[in-house]
């Protein structure tokens, strides 16, 4: 009897979790992109709009979520960052328009 109550509870929790995942599916799918996109965009602007030193900008964009890969092409003024299994790039497009994430 006790085991049955326990099993029912776990099942109910699991169904609730599934319902939540379904409800938040759009946000959840986009979520892993945040850290790499944020890091690429804000680093690019720090470096090429605010013209701060590279080392300063690495500290400036640091968040608690780690990134796994960081590549900066100084000639192209383009930054590619990977983290949580996703990869995003930002590029400097000009003095007035600064940096932008690539689509």
């Amino acid at each position: 009897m006790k085991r049955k109550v326990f099993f029912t509870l776990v099942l109910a929790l699991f169904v609730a979790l599934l319902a939540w995942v379904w409800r938040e599916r759009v946000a959840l799918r986009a979520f892993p992109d945040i850290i790499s996109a944020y890091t690429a965009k804000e680093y690019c602007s720090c470096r090429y709009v605010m013209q701060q030193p590279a080392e300063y900008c690495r500290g400036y964009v640091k968040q608690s979520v780690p990134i796994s890969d960081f590549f900066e092409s100084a000639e192209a003024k383009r930054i590619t960052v990977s983290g949580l299994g996703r990869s995003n790039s930002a590029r400097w497009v000009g003095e007035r328009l600064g940096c932008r994430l690539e689509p």
Partner: protein
Amino acid sequence: MSKGWLLIPLLLLALSAHGEDWPGEQWPTAPRPTGPAIETLEHYAFPARDDATRQGIRTDALLVIQDGRLVYERYAGSTGADTPHLTWSISKSLLATLYGVAYGEQRFGLQDPVARYYPALSQHPDMTLADLFHWASGLDWQEDYEYAPLNSSVVAMLYTRGRRDMAAFTAQHPSFSPPGQVFRYSSGDSNLLAAALKNIVGPARYPDYPWTALFEPLGIRRATWETDANGTFVGSSYAYLTARDLARVGLLMQRDGRWGERQLIPKEWVAFNREPFARFQAGQDEAMPGGHWWLNRAANPTQRPWPDAPADTFAALGHWGQALYVIPSARLVIVRYGDDRDGSYRHNELLKRAMAAFAAAVQP
């Protein structure tokens, strides 16, 4: 004798012109005050900077304009006088001031439906431009940066689902209230304004409009304003100016939209920026919203947001401690850039100390 009488008005005119300072290529300067009040201000704004933990108050720039003259300027970290610093949400107030130029060109009315200029909002025919300036679109927006990233509308807008077309992303949000009724701070509302401006000034003028309409007349030579992939200015977040240049916008606002001899922005537009939003309720935000600027006005029965600053203080405020304060009664403009990550910075503390250091000298 009669010639002498004729000269008097001319003399008065010359005196009044000399009595008002404006920046040319550079700001005119005045002697920097010294003494304990300045030390108290610096003690608050520039404590030892902790770059390892990023805790505490981390001011990047502090600049004070008094009577149109630069009286104080100090930088920290790697920010300098030539650094175009990210302003974050100060951009929203810059957008509102840019709109002021278009208002002077009589290109729109505040009660115009937004959908007239931004058809993606055709399902919200009652939403007016004024509603957006009051952050009262009624759209169900979640403004939260770091603490609730999953459901943060602003994080999704800037970095993931919304980044290609931020206004379209905002317009897809459902309503939680009819427009104009409820204040809810929203970067999405600001970017709807940025998108509507495209049709208000025309797509041909739009890409250069911030520079031709506002920055160049003020003598701002180096400003960056980033766009989304659709070419819409990120009106909510991504304008970059040096502290000296942001202070020019502050002086324009302090002097009711006038720049030298030219009324760049109608006085009534600045009055709208400074008029409290009547539907705002105490506690909904840390200061009183006006027309996309923040006011030191109380939502009864509570205290003013910055009790130690004059009641006519108004400000443009941004994430991580960015601030442009304008205090017309003390003829002060204060720019404060920062990189505060823990929210310990208090506007009132800085304003209190700045008033003690600078406003005393203004007394006639």
